[in-house]
């Protein structure tokens, strides 16, 4: 297990360095990148199996006691979410290699190695047992994401990248201040020790810490009203990079929020979270309806869906937290797949604008099928995973008598379906566009289709295994809601 946790951090970093050194040799670089990402994904699978069998595992980095050093904690929450995240990155990298030679592809010399750095950051963010390492992990993710977003140097990307960098730097600065605040109040940044010391603080200080970190993680997660950077920046990047960002980055914010606010028992923030969750859901869904570009519609949906996870968290009940975790697990692959399909559409039609596409269902039924499954799932129709996830969150809401939020969630679900219909009408039905300006060369289409197919198969697996996954989410939520379990595991 020691080796497994280490591999998840070391393999992607090492492969990134080696791939960067040989970045002009296409095949060698791709092989190294895939090997690093694959090793990390494989290791996370082993971690899942081991944690499921033996319970949480804690790695004391360098052998230092948690009061002094860094700990990596593979609890049931991390063991459930991390494998999904790493598998997604691996599949997207496959797609990226297929897309490489097209006008839409990212520049592989930088994007391959940077994806490795991003992966190491994602692993660290999910495994870390203290707030300062979480900050470092966020920075690792952000710095590589700055490069990934702007590395092609197009005017639109630089303009959007500016907003993205400024917003995230602001959030990082607030994070750092928050760390100082927590350290001043409690004398530690270790999560296990904080679960002991934060409840002893006066109510006002506790509320302050909770609210401060809600703003920090909320900016990363793009909740209302801190989301403005997202729909501008994401659509400008190459498809594969948007797919990873959409699937993972905002979700890391939500992940951190679920972990921190649930472990610290910040129940008094519950109502604020619910209100913001409701507005986020509706604003995101309405924003999506107003767009007329595939990637922009999908970007607004990220925001809307974040609202559901926040609602599950804001309920502060076992069922609510479990619902939020299940939603997280469902949402990451589905969102990624939708962006990959968006990339396939652009590749085929020369654009993602709804008024310049059409008739794709006739000409490319496979792409239509690959879109339909995750789109219906996102909208929350049975039997797909989105239905199970939304059902979990909404039934938790009914149980907690949070009726207004349940209604809002249902309305947002209907609006989501409406905008998915909009994409379907614009892209897949209707007359062929007057002229298709496909930019050559078209890239390795079978490989891109295969990668998207694998990802769709993944989302279907999640739908099929929804029952066991829900049980796992309940377990993970129980671990988070009882800080005693976390504390014993870490401090022992």
């Amino acid at each position: 297990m020691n080796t497994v946790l280490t591999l998840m951090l070391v393999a992607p970093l090492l492969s990134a360095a080696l791939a960067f050194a040989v970045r002009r040799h296409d095949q060698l670089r791709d092989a190294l990148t895939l090997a690093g990402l694959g090793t990390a994904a494989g290791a996370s699978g082993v971690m899942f199996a081991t944690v499921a069998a033996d319970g949480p595992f804690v790695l004391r980095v360098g052998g230092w006691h948690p009061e002094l050093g860094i700990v990596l904690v593979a609890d049931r929450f991390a063991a459930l979410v991390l494998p999904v995240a790493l598998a997604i990155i691996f599949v997207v990298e496959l797609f990226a290699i297929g897309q490489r030679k097209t006008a839409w592809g990212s520049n592989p010399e930088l994007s391959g190695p940077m994806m490795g750095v991003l992966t190491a950051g994602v692993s660290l963010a999910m495994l870390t047992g203290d707030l300062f390492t979480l900050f470092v992990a966020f920075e690792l993710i952000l710095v590589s994401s700055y490069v990934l977003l702007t590395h092609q140097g197009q005017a639109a990307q630089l303009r959007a990248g500016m907003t993205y960098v400024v917003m995230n730097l602001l959030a990082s600065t607030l994070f750092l201040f928050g760390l100082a605040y927590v350290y001043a109040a409690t004398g530690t940044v270790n999560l296990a020790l904080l679960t002991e010391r934060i409840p002893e603080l006066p109510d006002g200080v506790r509320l302050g810490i909770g609210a401060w970190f809600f703003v920090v993680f909320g900016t990363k997660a793009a909740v209302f009203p801190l989301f403005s950077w997202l729909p501008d920046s994401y659509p400008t990047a190459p498809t594969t990079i948007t797919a990873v960002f959409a699937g993972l980055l905002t979700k890391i914010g939500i992940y951190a929020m679920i972990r921190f606010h649930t472990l610290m028992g910040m129940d008094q923030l519950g109502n604020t979270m619910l209100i913001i969750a409701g507005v986020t859901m509706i604003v995101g869904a309405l924003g999506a309806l107003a767009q007329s570009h595939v990637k922009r519609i999908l970007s607004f949906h990220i925001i809307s869906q974040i609202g559901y996870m926040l609602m599950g968290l804001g309920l502060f009940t076992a069922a609510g937290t479990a619902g939020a975790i299940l939603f997280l697990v469902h949402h990451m692959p589905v969102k990624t797949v939708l962006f990959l399909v968006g990339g396939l559409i652009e590749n085929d039609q020369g654009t993602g604008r709804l008024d310049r596409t059409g008739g794709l269902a006739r000409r490319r039924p496979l792409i239509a099928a690959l879109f339909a499954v995750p789109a219906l799932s996102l909208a929350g129709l049975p039997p797909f995973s989105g239905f199970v996830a939304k059902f979990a969150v909404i039934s938790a809401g009914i149980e907690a008598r949070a009726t207004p939020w349940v209604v809002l969630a249902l309305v947002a679900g209907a609006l989501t379906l409406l905008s998915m219909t909009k994409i379907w009408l614009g892209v897949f039905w209707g007359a062929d566009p007057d002229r298709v300006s496909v930019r050559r060369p078209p890239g390795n289409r079978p490989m891109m289709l295969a990668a998207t197919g694998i990802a769709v198969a993944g989302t279907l697996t999640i739908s099929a295994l929804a029952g066991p996954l829900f049980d796992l989410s309940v377990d993970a939520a129980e671990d988070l809601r009882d800080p005693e379990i976390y504390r014993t595991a870490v401090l022992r």
Partner: protein
Amino acid sequence: MIATRSPIVRLAIQTATPIAIVLGTYLLFAGHNRPGGGFAAGLVFGAVVVLRTIAGLQRPRHADTLIAVGVVIAVAVAALPVLWGDPFLDMKIVETTVPLLGKIKTGSALPFDIGVMAIVVGLIVALLDGLSLPTVDDTGTEAGAA
């Protein structure tokens, strides 16, 4: 270039270079128990590189190699203890007596610091390379190329 026009700047930077390198090396070795370390050493070496670039004197190239080698060294040293069952980032301390210098105490933190130093210097070189690229206007042609 300033170096060709001002002998004062050239001589000052040429004199400062070996002193800064000694200081950087000291920081690299002191870092284990006292203020210093790979990052601080890298910054001192980086400052030398920046000064020499401004003056137009010779400076290291190959930012990519420095960064890649640095990451590989640092990550490998961090991960190696796992092979014999110790935790990630565990540190081995070696103590020996050598003639002239007497008792020497060092550890696996030293190669780790050297890796960090290489990354920092590499990033500074990369930054300088980036800043010295020809400027490009909106249409993608070099400015001033008419």
